């Protein structure tokens, strides 16, 4: 009788011990990552948030003065406008290019599609400063292989080209060039794994070519296209490199406060005002986190269980 009483008890205790050992092991495995997550995810965000309420020149509590300063800066609305224009063009171009090219490639033979996909994908290797350097050449009619195109518009030098396309358009083209190929590869995989029964049935019902692509395949990848658009949007809001490096082509192209991140950089490095920089950064990170939370909890894009 006694054994019947103590046994479940002992078992429960053993179970609890096993459980707590499991928790300890799990955290031990996670330790390096958690340290980095704290150091480069959580801490900087909260530190910047705290700093945004401090006058970092006198080091006194400053209330919301830093935010007031940011909102009063006439360059901020202009930068918001610039960035939103860029993002609108970039997201639209990305959606159009990725959706149409993926669907078109899906209708080609495998070998051809594979080769073309590689051609679209390789520019992904051109990143950060190299994109800007490459495109500064490509936008210069005196050296550019696209010279004939520019002469159609009577653009004779880089200034003409950049003014003709507009800065937002130029940055959108650079970003499209480098980032869309990766997505085309992703969607190539997605399209090739669509259930063949559905596609067969549609084909038997007479859908082919265009209608097969737009009526059957497009709705099936629609959700992923939305995911891509949101990620592109979130990335675009944070743009820094492209406008920052335009000055390499000479003073007439120099943009030091074109995007919001550039302004945050200006506040910190030109003006030495880390409080204002932290305030603007907090607003930028906050926007990104809200987008992320909507994506995690509002949609079922990511698996968390």
């Amino acid at each position, binding site marked *: 009788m006694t054994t019947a009483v103590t046994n479940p008890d002992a078992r429960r205790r053993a179970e609890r011990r096993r459980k707590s050992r499991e928790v300890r092991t799990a955290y031990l495995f996670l330790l390096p990552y958690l340290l980095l997550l704290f150091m480069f995810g959580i801490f900087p965000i909260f530190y910047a948030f705290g700093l945004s309420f401090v006058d970092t020149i006198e080091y006194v509590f400053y209330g919301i003065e830093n935010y007031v300063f940011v909102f009063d800066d006439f360059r901020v609305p202009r930068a918001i406008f610039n960035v939103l224009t860029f993002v609108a063009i970039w997201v639209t171009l990305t959606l159009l290019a990725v959706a149409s090219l993926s669907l078109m490639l899906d209708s080609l033979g495998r070998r051809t599609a594979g080769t073309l996909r590689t051609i679209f994908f390789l520019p992904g290797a051109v990143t950060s400063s190299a994109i800007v350097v490459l495109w500064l050449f490509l936008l210069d009619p005196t050296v550019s292989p696209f010279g004939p195109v520019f002469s159609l518009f009577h653009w004779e030098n880089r200034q003409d080209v950049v003014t003709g396309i507009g800065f937002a358009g130029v940055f959108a083209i650079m970003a499209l060039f480098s980032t869309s190929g990766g997505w085309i590869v992703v969607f190539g995989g997605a399209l090739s794994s669509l259930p063949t029964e559905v596609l067969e049935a549609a084909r038997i019902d007479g859908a082919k070519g265009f209608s097969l692509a737009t009526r059957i395949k497009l709705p099936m990848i629609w959700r992923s296209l939305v995911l891509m658009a949101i990620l592109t949007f979130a990335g675009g809001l944070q743009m820094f*490199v492209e406008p920052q490096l335009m000055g390499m082509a000479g003073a007439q192209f120099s943009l030091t406060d074109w995007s919001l991140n550039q302004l945050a950089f200006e506040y*910190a490095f030109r003006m030495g005002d880390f409080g204002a920089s932290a305030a603007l950064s907090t607003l930028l990170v906050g926007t990104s986190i809200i987008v992320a939370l909507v994506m995690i909890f509002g949609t079922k894009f990511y698996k968390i269980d």
Partner: protein
Amino acid sequence: MTASVSRKPGLSVGRFSVYAFLAFAVCFYGIPLLWLFIAGTRSDASLLTDAPFALGTWDSLARSWTNLTTYNNFQIGTWAINSAIYAIGGVVLSLIASIPGGYALALSEFPGRRLILVLTLIAMITPSSAVVLPIFIEMKLLGLNNTYAGLILASGFFPFGVYLAYIYFSSSLPKGVMDSARVDGCNPFQLFTKIALPLARPIIALVAFFSFLAIWSNYFLAFVLLSDDKLYNLPVGLTALISSSGALSNLPSNDVPIKKPEVILAAILVVLPVILIFLVAQRFVRSGTLSGAEKG
């Protein structure tokens, strides 16, 4: 393309516009890289006067290469070595963090697990450039700006890698084998090193691939954290080279031997390792990005 044409007799307007659009896309994506690699062989004068795709000579290539590599006491070599140090350090650190981390998240139930997953996703979706300035402010506080360690630590934080490893381990570890190994007396560490790790080779390669790409091409963080030009990585060095020589601004010439061809070679140096890795890893990436971005 001939193969697919012959599949369908005749060329309808629809087919024709598909081919026209594809041809346009091939030009848009293909011409710039092709031009870049050809232009690297040409002289400054040839770039301005010859046809865009005219081939250069070995001589001009060799001259530009010497100009570039010897400039400022072999500075570009230092930057290339730095880039390699940052990349190797960052990739190793990101692997040390993501593989066991993703494994623990996938295999055990523990308090705080869901919170860690949500934080990981937030960090993964938030573009890394959003936290560059906060990280700089923090690094200044810690005195880690302008050090190798600072940039390596910051680039070792790679939440996407943790998420990829988590997805991989939760879907592809054979539960039966794990259970019987546990019954046979494997402790949690042996379970990880003897069973999970050997099976994790694809995910290790995939995380290494993505974190390498992110670190190699990191401009913003490196630019903000590093002010000593001896510590620059290649992307930052490339811009420093151009700013100091004015090679891209079409201004009257100066004595600096860095002209357009040298800049093009430097850009190729930044791009080439990634292109090579792309070509090698292509198949791999297709299945991998899918599990992270598409099916997730």
